[in-house]
């Protein structure tokens, strides 16, 4: 076991980690280590072989692997970024001046990195069957959408022959088409909510194109089959999502694909005592994407589940740059330490961006607050000295609305929980109060 000092360590080389690494390198962060569990960089994008990525960021419609490749190509320009693939981070422990990150891989065994700053970019995981507590048996043939996708698109295996998909978010819809293209009969897509949270485009191109029925306001109430799935029982639900067993019906199938939600993967963040937001399931971050722990930044799906990878790249660039600024200011600080007393140091730190919001004076940041029909807002703490892009998720679908954040108002034809609203708030939109409330209101004609 040995210890290594680095300037910046990034956990995860999916879209968030890749964009953050490049941005940090461009901003002069020094020596960067990019760690990923898998052999291949790009994270989940490598199995998302469908098109539709990058319309905003690259003004082109790319597939997932193509989108990842753009960043991987750029990565090659920065020799200061060391890639540690097939490496798992097992512990993150903030120390006095550094963050200690314990990693393990087959070549080096256990290695501890002492990093001046780290960026959490672990992404998210899928909710499993157990979390939704579907009654019935536990046979082979129950896959989360991501597992089925990996099996098909990377490993090249068929998960089954006849499938039912539970969950009609974009991942469920994309998998319905993917299974169909490979000759698997998709008997139905079942959605608990009275509407699909997927894009209309995906409803049309993934279901309608192939005549796959979508049952909204329904759920799987039982999984049947002892050894392999033999079928599922589907029933309509009432407004409180309680199934009506009298109207239940059985669909024969050998595979159940679950697309029932994503959860930011924050076990390591919790270990590092990073404060989490109940609404997003991810770390509370400021405009710099710094968390409550100084020197720990976070970006991508570990912060909040995104619907567009373009947004991940955008915020990860901010996180990368901020982490670089943090590393550089700490380096300046080290130089200062020899000559000045503590008080001077504090003044200097306060002026720099090196402090986390948890260390600042309480009024140094404006706190975003969810008002009517708002589920979550990222970032949660806004700097007063520059504009910040807000990613806002609404609680319920609504048409003809005005979304407002402080002094900023924008009319929208429609909002849905499946689509993030992106809003740039500038300091002038914020009044002197300590918080900025975001609300959705019905538009007055």
């Amino acid at each position, binding site marked *: 076991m040995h210890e290594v000092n680095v300037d910046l360590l990034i956990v995860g080389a999916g879209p968030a980690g890749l964009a953050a690494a490049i941005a940090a390198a461009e901003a002069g962060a020094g020596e960067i280590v990019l760690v990923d569990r898998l052999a291949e960089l790009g994270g989940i994008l490598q199995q998302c*072989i469908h*098109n539709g990525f990058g319309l905003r960021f690259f003004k082109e419609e790319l597939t*997932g692997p193509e989108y990842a*490749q753009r960043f*991987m190509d750029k990565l090659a320009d920065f020799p200061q970024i060391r890639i540690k693939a097939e490496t798992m981070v097992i512990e993150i422990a903030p120390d006095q001046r550094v963050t200690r990150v314990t990693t393990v891989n087959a070549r080096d065994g256990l290695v501890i990195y002492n990093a001046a700053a780290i960026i959490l970019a672990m992404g998210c995981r899928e909710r499993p069957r157990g979390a939704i507590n579907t009654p019935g048996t536990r046979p082979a043939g129950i896959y989360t959408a991501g597992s089925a996708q990996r099996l098909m698109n990377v490993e*090249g295996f068929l998960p089954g022959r006849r499938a039912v998909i539970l969950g009609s978010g974009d991942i469920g819809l994309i998998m319905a088409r993917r299974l169909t293209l490979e000759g698997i009969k998709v008997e139905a897509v079942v959605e608990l909510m009275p509407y699909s949270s997927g894009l*209309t485009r995906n409803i049309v191109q993934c279901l309608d*194109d192939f005549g796959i029925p979508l049952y909204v306001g329904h759920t799987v109430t039982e999984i049947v089959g002892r050894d392999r799935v033999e079928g599922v029982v589907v029933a309509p639900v009432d407004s409180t999502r309680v199934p009506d067993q009298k109207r239940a019906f059985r669909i024969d199938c050998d595979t159940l694909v679950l697309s029932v939600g994503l959860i930011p993967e924050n076990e390591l963040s919790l270990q590092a005592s990073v404060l989490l937001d109940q609404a997003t399931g991810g770390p509370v971050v400021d405009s710099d994407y710094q968390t409550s722990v100084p020197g720990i930044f976070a970006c991508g799906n570990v912060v909040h589940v995104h619907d567009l990878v373009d947004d991940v790249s955008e915020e990860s660039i901010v996180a990368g740059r901020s982490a670089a600024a943090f590393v550089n200011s700490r380096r300046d600080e080290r130089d200062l330490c020899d000559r000045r007393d503590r008080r001077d140091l504090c003044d200097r730190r306060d002026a720099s961006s090196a402090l986390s919001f948890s260390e600042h004076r309480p009024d140094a940041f404006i706190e975003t607050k969810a008002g009517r029909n708002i589920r979550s807002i990222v970032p949660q703490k806004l700097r007063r000295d520059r504009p910040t892009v807000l990613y806002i998720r609404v609680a319920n679908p609504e048409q003809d609305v005005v979304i407002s954040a402080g002094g900023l108002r924008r009319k929208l034809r*429609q909002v849905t929980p499946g689509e993030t609203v992106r809003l740039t708030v500038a300091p002038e939109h914020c009044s002197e109060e300590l918080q900025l409330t975001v609300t959705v209101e019905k538009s007055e004609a």
Partner: protein
Amino acid sequence: MKHEITCTACPMGCRITVELEEAGGVRGGAGAGGESGVSAADVSNARITGNSCRRGAEYAWEEITAPKRVVTSVVAVKGQDRMLPVRTAQPIPKECIFAVMDAIQRIEVSLPVQTGQILVSNIAGTGVSLTASKNMMDIQGGFMRAR
């Protein structure tokens, strides 16, 4: 002929109705025709309603007359235990989706492969090429097949 389609040009999802006159008969250019931006010749025998914008009318018209889709899938790689993701470089006619899939199933490529490299030109007679979505330079590990 009356077609009802859901617009996918934006997340609004307008329900657009396109009415086509039988045998090229003319039923005025009223409704969305004038402001749709679709050429007068195209819409001379169509009536498009329910759209909220010009893009909607364009989408509806294409969806009725010549719907197109990008097809993405994977192909086998010689000596490799991981699939190579591929795409049609442009959208292909919707009715050719399964013909393109049939062709994709028969392909086996050799490494190295670069992103954007044409693997098959004119796949399944669509006039569109099939390209690699990923750089694959040497043998990479999947999880499941023995190397």
